[in-house]
């Protein structure tokens, strides 16, 4: 107990000066003149608007990735005291003085800087030499594309940081496993693996690839653990449980937590509200909730409602009608019923109001006490302003001839009988006696006579229909689809008997206070679902490229051009590193296959421990490259060169590994080794030289003459901007 009295307290620290120096140089290369250029550079325009939304606490929806990355950038803005007042609309726009450029760009720059010592650590954790580790760090340091990407307010460098951190902590963990499982550092590195994996996934969905890689390496290790018969069953179980918790449960919980914080932060309604369901919108401050706050919950006979389509594509819209009728004859010669048009209208309008009427009674007001409408009830829908009944009949719809036309029934000069009875089906009911609820219930209207279902077809009507959206009766519903479901958005109990009074009432806002909140999980799942299914169709960009062009660096991206001079910033890689990285991957693959086939014939070229190291290094580095690169061939979205950077960072780790392997195992004589070393030195210095030559395009700090720029255009496909005068 009192040992410290007898012996002195000794603190021994081990400082690896290499790591310190690497960190220092990394910081220098990434932080030097960070606020230059003081203008919006490329995708900063994209992330910037979300930072502003965070500062103003306004809800937004971005399908490019989960919110953690945006929140990190916003944290920079918060610490720098950014008020969110900047119009992010143009690349190259000068930042106003209220934008804390330094603190906004700080976090990505730090992440980029720390990747350098981390590369060192990873290679040494793979049990390769100190020299190889230094090589990896050096390459990471001088890679121009990584420098450019981390000096700006972009997310790739943060993603790379967490990818590498996940790999590093996993390696540390599995090295701990060998000598002292369940010790403190074992737990620490295991937990850190899970946390950094979920951070990577939280920044961009791409992080999933590295996560899966780590998971599968962990699974292989676990499988060996199961086969280890020296361990007791209980011990194996504890091992598996610890891994499952740290690598599966913790990341999942953290991921949800990101969304939790995101939704807590963004509580105000904003420009992306319309994409979300009514219930979600009502949970935001301002916007829809201002209108719906006081509404009665249960829809009753006599209720006045607006009906929003649940699917809401191509546009969110409300069931609508107006006095104009369908044209007698369409342009293609087909006839219509010439009845009043029913459409779906994407704007709020008094013509969006409908009254729910009981077919058995004549009154259009809510009786007291109100009689709620339930699942399975037959109702009539009366258009508020024209008092006509929603009707459908066996006439082909204007643009979707396989479906029935939906109209508001006009009862004069007409030979067709009214068919205006609709049976109400609550889609998300819990029991068959559920009451129709405002906002929360998704309902379908099934036509009683023809069993057609009221549906938004998605087509725009021509000029006679004022380009509003077509509504039809779907005769052959093949299962549930959002376009056939509707929900009540605005709602009030109708009080006025007379048409004139009612019109006044329709124009007035709704009252009665009644607050209602959506649970977090419901909001989370809706938001996540919308993010995954949102499709942006603008598929072409001047600087978009294909995965094949990345490996050979046949493409670049012009990020920024000085408004007056020719100083410019490009995303452009170090050609030497990219080429040798590709080469190293090919060499690794061939050597690996060669060794594998030979081992199968019981010819062991490598000692067992060297083979194990070689396999693990390949799984982490070559595997990391493959999982971060190959999936892009299957993706249909617009791709850019920066999507390749995570894969590149793994390739950089592979390079020194392969070189050291060649040196240790393939060079048979001292002469060959010396030769190799000379080659490596030459190659390294050429990489440094290239890096230095491209430096003006990386930092954009130096004006170049047109001739110098032309001289830098090493490939015809590079797009370097030369001013014409």
């Amino acid at each position, binding site marked *: 107990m009192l040992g410290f009295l007898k012996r002195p307290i000794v603190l021994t620290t081990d400082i690896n000066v290499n790591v310190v120096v690497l960190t220092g140089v990394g910081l220098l290369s990434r932080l030097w003149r960070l606020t230059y250029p003081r203008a919006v550079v490329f995708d900063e325009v994209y992330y910037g608007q979300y930072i502003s939304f965070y500062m103003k606490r306004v809800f937004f929806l971005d399908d490019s990735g989960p919110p953690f990355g945006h929140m990190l950038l916003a944290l920079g803005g918060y610490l720098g005291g950014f008020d969110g007042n900047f119009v992010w609309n143009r690349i190259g726009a000068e930042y106003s003085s209220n934008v804390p450029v330094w603190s906004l760009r700080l976090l990505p720059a730090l992440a980029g800087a720390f990747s350098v010592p981390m590369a060192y650590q990873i290679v040494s954790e793979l049990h390769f030499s100190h020299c190889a580790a230094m090589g990896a760090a050096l390459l990471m340091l001088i890679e121009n594309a990584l420098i450019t990407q981390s000096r700006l307010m972009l997310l790739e460098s943060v993603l790379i940081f967490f990818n590498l951190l996940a790999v590093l902590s996993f390696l540390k963990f599995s090295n701990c496993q060998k000598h002292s499982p369940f010790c403190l550092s074992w737990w620490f590195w295991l937990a850190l693996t899970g946390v950094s994996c979920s951070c990577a996934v939280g920044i961009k969905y791409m992080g999933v690839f590295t996560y899966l890689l780590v998971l599968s390496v962990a699974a292989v290790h676990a*499988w060996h653990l*199961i*086969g280890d*018969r020296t361990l007791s*069953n209980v011990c*194996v179980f504890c091992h598996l449980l610890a891994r499952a918790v740290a690598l599966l449960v913790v990341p999942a919980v953290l991921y949800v937590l990101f969304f939790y914080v995101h939704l807590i932060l963004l509580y105000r309604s904003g420009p992306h509200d319309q994409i979300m369901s009514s219930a979600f919108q009502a949970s935001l401050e301002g916007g829809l909730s201002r209108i719906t706050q006081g509404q009665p919950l249960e829809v009753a006979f006599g209720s006045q409602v607006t009906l929003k389509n649940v*699917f809401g*594509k*191509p546009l969110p819209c409300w069931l609508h009608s107006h006095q104009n009728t369908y044209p007698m004859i369409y*342009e293609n010669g087909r006839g219509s019923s010439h009845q009043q048009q029913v459409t779906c209208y994407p704007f709020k309008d008094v013509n969006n109001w409908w009254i729910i009427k009981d077919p058995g009674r004549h009154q259009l007001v809510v009786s007291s006490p109100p009689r709620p409408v339930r699942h399975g009830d037959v109702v009539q829908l009366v258009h508020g302003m024209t008092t006509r009944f929603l009707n459908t009949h066996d006439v082909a719809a204007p643009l979707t001839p396989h479906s029935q036309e939906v109209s508001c029934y006009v009862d004069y000069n007409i030979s067709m009988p009214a068919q205006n009875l609709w049976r109400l089906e609550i889609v998300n009911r819990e029991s068959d006696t559920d009451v129709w609820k405002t906002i929360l219930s998704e309902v379908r209207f099934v036509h009683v006579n023809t069993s057609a279902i009221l*549906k*938004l*077809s*998605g087509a725009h009507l*021509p000029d006679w229909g004022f380009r509003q959206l077509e509504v039809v009766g779907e005769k*052959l*519903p*093949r*299962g*549930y*689809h959002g*376009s056939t479901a509707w929900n009540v958005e605005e709602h009030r109990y109708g009080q006025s008997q007379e048409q004139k009074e009612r019109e006044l009432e329709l124009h007035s806002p709704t009252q009665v206070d009644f607050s209602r909140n959506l649970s977090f999980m419901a909001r989370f799942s809706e938001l996540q679902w919308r993010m995954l299914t949102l499709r942006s169709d603008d598929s*072409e960009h*001047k600087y978009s490229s294909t995965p094949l062009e990345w490996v050979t660096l046949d493409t670049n991206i012009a990020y920024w051009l000085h408004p007056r001079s020719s100083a410019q910033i490009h995303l452009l890689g170090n050609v030497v590193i990219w080429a040798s990285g590709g080469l190293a991957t090919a060499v690794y693959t061939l050597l690996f296959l060669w060794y594998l*086939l030979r081992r*199968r*014939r*019981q010819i062991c070229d490598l000692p067992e421990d060297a083979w194990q190291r070689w396999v693990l290094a390949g799984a982490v580095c070559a595997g990391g490259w493959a999982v971060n690169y190959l999936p892009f061939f*299957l993706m*249909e979205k617009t791709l850019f060169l920066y999507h390749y950077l995570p894969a590149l960072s793994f390739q950089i780790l592979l390079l020194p590994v392969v070189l050291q392997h060649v040196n240790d195992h393939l060079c048979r004589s001292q002469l060959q080794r010396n030769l190799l070393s000379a080659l490596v030195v030459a190659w390294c210095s050429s990489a440094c030289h290239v890096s230095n030559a491209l430096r003006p395009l990386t930092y954009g700090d130096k004006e170049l003459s047109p001739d110098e720029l032309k001289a830098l255009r090493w490939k015809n496909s590079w797009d370097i901007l030369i001013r014409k005068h």
Partner: protein
Amino acid sequence: MPPATGGGLTGSELRARRGRCGPQTARPASRDVAAEAAAPSPKRSAVSSQRLEAAGRWALLALVTLLSFATRFHRLEEPRHICWDETHFGKMGSYYINRTFFFDVHPPLGKMLIGLAGYLSGYDGTFLFQKPGDKYEHHSYMGMRGFCAFLGSWLIPFAYLTVLDLSKSLPAALLTAALLTFDTGCLTLSQYILLDPILMFFIMAAMLSMVKYNSCADRPFSAPWWFWLTLTGISLAGALGVKFVGLFIILQVGLNTISDLWHLLGDLSLSLVTVGKHLTARILCLIVLPLALYMATFAIHFMVLNKSGPGDGFFSSAFQSRLSGNNLHNASVPEHLAYGSVITVKNFRMAIGYLHSHRHLYPEGIGARQQQVTTYLHKDYNNLWIIKKHNTNSDPLDPSFPVEFVRHGDIIRLEHKETSRNLHSHYHEAPLTRKHYQVTGYGINGTGDSNDFWRIEVVNRKFGNRIKVLRSRIRFIHLVTGCVLGSSGKVLPRWGWEQLEVTCTPYLKETLNSIWNVEDHINPKLPNISLDVLQPSFPEILLESHMVMIRGNNGLKPKDNEFTSKPWHWPINYQGLRFSGINDTDFRVYLLGNPVVWWLNLLSIALYLLSGSVLAIAMQRGAQLPAEVEGLSQVLLRGGGQVLLGWMLHYFPFFLMGRILYFHHYFPAMLFSSMLTGILWDTLLRLCAWSVASSRLARSIHVVGVLSLLLGTAYSFYLFHPLAYGMVGPLAQDPQSPMAGLRWLESWDF
């Protein structure tokens, strides 16, 4: 069924254990040894009982086959009208009989076989196959349906034999056969003129022959080994030749072959030369042979279809010149483009069409109010353009001038022949693709401004080369703005007559949208040469037809506001497909799996994963299993594993597909899933029986279990058979309906 089952069970007790897996051959099941020891019967009786057993096996196989044929051919002629996709595939069969060219997204073998069956059975190709519900009247359609049903019937014996080989257990094989025979979905899908029975026939044939050659592995290079290996290759070619889905079974055979070779390589008793021989044999039979056969089907396809037909427009000009009746066939035109020629310009991308203009202006508010330029798929006078020099307006057709050829890199003007306006572009945004520039017709009688100048470039050629009609891939680069003429492929609204938008794109990326070729070429001063010399070679048309097919497949995108079938719907039998009839007065056929079979399959997959991982972990932990359990778990892990792999390969890729999907895409996977069910339940019941010590009880557990599964499926088939054989009368929600009470899910609409 019951007597057959009994025979099966006795037979199974003496099942032979073949195969090269060491543990299996080394350790025969303990009970077999016990049985032999306990019955010291004379040798003769053993021989006769073996013979009896062999006869029993054959009889059982015959019974299974017979039952399968009986169910598939029962009421095959009903309904006497076109059902569902018969309208496509019947029509395509007719095209082969009439030899008219058409385009389809699937490779040709399946439709060729349908055509052949129709031809042999006396169908003359005159029926129009217009839409589902059309009556066949006097046309002979039974030959084609019979052919599909014939192939569909073989699925069950194939599955039976595959399972028998994998599990060495008759009850498992019988169970599989029963599941498939009594599945209404498989039955329905086999009864019509569709590609699916043909596809599934080849998939199952490949699976069976692969399993067979695996079990011949102890006698490599013997006659049966070669036979099954070759048969695998042939079936693979067949599967891929019917639909691209055949790739999945190729993948499975490939994986199996790799693991096979891996084992051979690790066997140090084999010399490297022997391993090399193995490798060569597999390359020959599983790569070279299928590829050759696959290409042969295409060669026949192109040979048979030599008349112009509805598919012409999808293909390039050079391709069309092969088809008799097409205006490019045997046409003769001047070979090199010259100034003054009248030409049509076709976009290189499929289904974009010819550069077109007409006397209508872009409407107010959409760019400059000048004449529209579009692309148009049909041949028309408004597709004609005159190619002129940019700086002179003299008539190059004046006989006093010498002929001057257009060369790569020349600056030209394109004048629209009918309206005498020049192809023009400027810094206005295009009507639909806002980031591109608008293209218009401008000028009067050929006089315009410098925005009418285009540089003509041949892709991948040097400057100064002449430009070949049909062959050269050319681009038009606008001189002033530097943009490239292209078509976005988007449909213009009504004002543009729903033709396709033409733009000038500032992005110089080379895409097919901005590459054109000259198709018609009229120049009286130049000699016409026959286009026969320009006909594309077979590899070229093969490549082109694949590009067109792939693009066609990618083009089948689901619409936003429609209900679409999702892959997760399929295994749970969420919703079927209406083959025929909607209303209560119609004769209705509804493609839906027998829910009992399908849900049993679903349960089996879950049970398999559970029991498989328990066994695998136990073995990895080094648990000492009794010999009997060890044998059974080998069957479960190896045999079951192969089938499970088949199921996964035929199911999971659909989650990644962007094209529109249908319920019937699941059926190949469902075959594998049923085989898994057969193996799993037989093995589980045996394990159960083993764990109960008393041998009589043990046997009865197994017998009762298998019997009840067989009878259960048979009964469910009795309940659901109207789905496949057709039903009339009220819909199922009506209590009067014969199907009342059977609509177990609300999403089934029969």
